[in-house]
């Protein structure tokens, strides 16, 4: 491997981390908020696919990419609302509901997405981080999604809200001890539904960044488990929005391995390298989880069950 190849490879990994990491970032922030309130939403995989379709469709129909982003957030919130409401029924398990919404979200997305496979929708503007380089491969690898700064800002805001505001404290209280929240007269189910909906909206932005940025098309294989990886990623980040940023970039880098190797002409094991994010997730779970032990930072209501 010569110097140029190395540079292209590294730029591919870095650029890929920043590009593939964006959906991870939003979904993990959404899941983080949901889990802080004491519920797991496995349905974010469905939210991600559904909102990716909605973003592409709305952007194509309206001609404005920001309408697409808005549609993604709304659709994500809507599907999450269904999760929140269902889980508030007695005897309805949040994990099973998540699986159901995963299937429903995908079904709806594929149903409405059929006519969207051909067309081209307006795309999010790119931030050129690679302008300094003379290599066109490096420049194109470092085109950054305009939603990334929004995601970074959101992570900081969430961390601040959790630490310093009344609303943040309420969400954490409900997530740590529903009994205590009830004793203080707060509506536990209401807070959880709200947290799930907002979490779904944030995850919807992740869907928008899947279809409204490079490669910028809608197809039925658009997400393969990013929504679920995000659940594991939140565990890895120990429920801290700021650590979610690092975790998301790490997973983005793992996901970028296959394409980056291909870009410098190494085609062998393309599918194997594409499984890296999943393997990495498993390895991280092995390293962070202990049987019978509660992970530091985990919301009390999650480990109570």
């Amino acid at each position, binding site marked *: 491997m010569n110097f140029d190849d190395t540079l292209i490879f590294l730029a591919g990994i870095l650029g890929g981390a920043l590009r593939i990491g964006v959906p991870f970032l939003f979904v993990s922030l959404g899941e983080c908020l949901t889990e802080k309130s004491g519920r797991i939403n496995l349905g974010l995989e469905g939210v991600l696919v559904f909102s990716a379709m909605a973003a592409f469709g709305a952007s194509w129909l309206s001609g404005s990419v920001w309408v697409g982003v808005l549609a993604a957030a709304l659709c994500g919130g809507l599907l999450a609302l269904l999760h929140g409401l269902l889980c508030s029924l007695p005897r*309805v398990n949040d994990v099973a509901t998540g699986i*159901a919404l995963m299937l429903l979200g995908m079904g709806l997305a594929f149903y409405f997405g059929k006519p969207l496979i051909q067309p081209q929708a307006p795309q999010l503007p790119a931030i050129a981080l690679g302008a300094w380089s003379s290599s066109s491969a490096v420049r194109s690898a470092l085109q950054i999604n305009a939603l990334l700064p929004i995601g970074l800002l959101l992570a900081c805001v969430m961390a601040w809200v959790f630490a310093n505001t009344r609303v943040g404290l309420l969400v954490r209280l409900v997530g740590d001890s529903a009994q205590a929240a009830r004793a203080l007269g707060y509506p536990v189910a209401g807070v959880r539904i709200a947290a799930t909906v907002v979490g779904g909206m944030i995850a919807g932005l992740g869907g928008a960044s899947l279809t409204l940025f490079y490669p910028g098309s809608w197809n039925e294989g658009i997400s393969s488990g990013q929504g679920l990886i995000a659940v*594991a990623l939140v565990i890895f980040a120990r429920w801290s929005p700021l650590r979610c940023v690092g975790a998301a970039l790490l997973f983005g880098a793992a996901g970028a391995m296959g394409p980056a190797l291909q870009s410098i002409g190494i085609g062998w094991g393309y599918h194997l390298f594409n499984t890296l994010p999943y393997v990495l997730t498993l390895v991280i779970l092995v390293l962070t989880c202990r049987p019978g032990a509660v992970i530091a930072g985990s919301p009390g209501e999650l480990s109570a069950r």
Partner: protein
Amino acid sequence: MRSALEDILLPVAAIVAALLLFGLFVMLSGLNPLDVWRLLFMGAFGDAYSWQNTLQRAAPLMLTALCVAIPARAGLVVIGGEGALVLGGLAAAVLAHALPPSVALSSPLAGSVLVCLAAAAAGGLWVMLAGWLRQYRGINETISSLLLAYVAIGLFKHFVEGPLRDPSSLNTPSTYELAEGLRIGVMGASDVHWGLAVGVVACLVAELWLRLTPSGFSVRVVGGNMRAAQLVGLPASRLVLLACLLGGAAAGVAGGIEIAAVHTKANAALIAGYGYAGILVAFMARHSPLAVIPVAILFGGFGAAGSLLQRRLGMPDASVLVLQGLAFVLILASEALRGGAWRTWLRSAHKVAV
């Protein structure tokens, strides 16, 4: 007695409600729901041909549903059946590759048994890995089994498009066709392959095992209360691993049979979502292997009707997925109505409103 009645009535009500909602849904897309319902029925159970198509699809569903139902009886939520199925298919392809064609298998039965064994081993060990990670590493099996499914799909694609690829398959990379002796044929004069019999027998055996044998009973105790099981000295972890092994083996066999009876070679067509539909079937059957049989036939029927909806009404092939999703949501919601709970629920809703 009353709860047994509920066990049947609630899922039936959920299916009916899902069909009604689906009718409303297609109405919004400008179609006549009556046409859709009629075609759903015709395509699933209308004539002998649709029955054969339905049963063909029900066979893998029964087996992938067992991959959810059996671990569920041990208290696990395993949703990675798709991975076990895909690896079962890969195992069948590897077996076909490894056996030199000159080894003409003495009887077709031996070939079928070999395929099923290889597929069962691959699928079983894969899901057992998720069980092991849970028992010995404290990792949530729902997440890990699904992650493992994606890894399995990656492995499958790597081998099918790499070392096992038939160079003459250009557009859809596939393995070589299975030797005649390894294929699984059809039952009698019908078009339905023997996989259906395997599925039904597997469900019956699983039901009997859970009900009548000490190990099956122990698995249910573990599922009911892990701590109590440990207190009375049951080897809880080993029982969990056993349940995962059996469930995964069932899903693996589903993949092996799909390859040996339907596709006759391994390619991406195997990844058709049977593993995910099996989750729905298992939940709808309330994780009872016996109930899996009719539920799998019902959803196999919806799957079979999907192509008819596509042809006659021009509906997207994902229509069936929407119907499945609606049914899944409603079956879970129906749990809230169990045991006359709707009365207390109404009361608490009233309280919240006030």
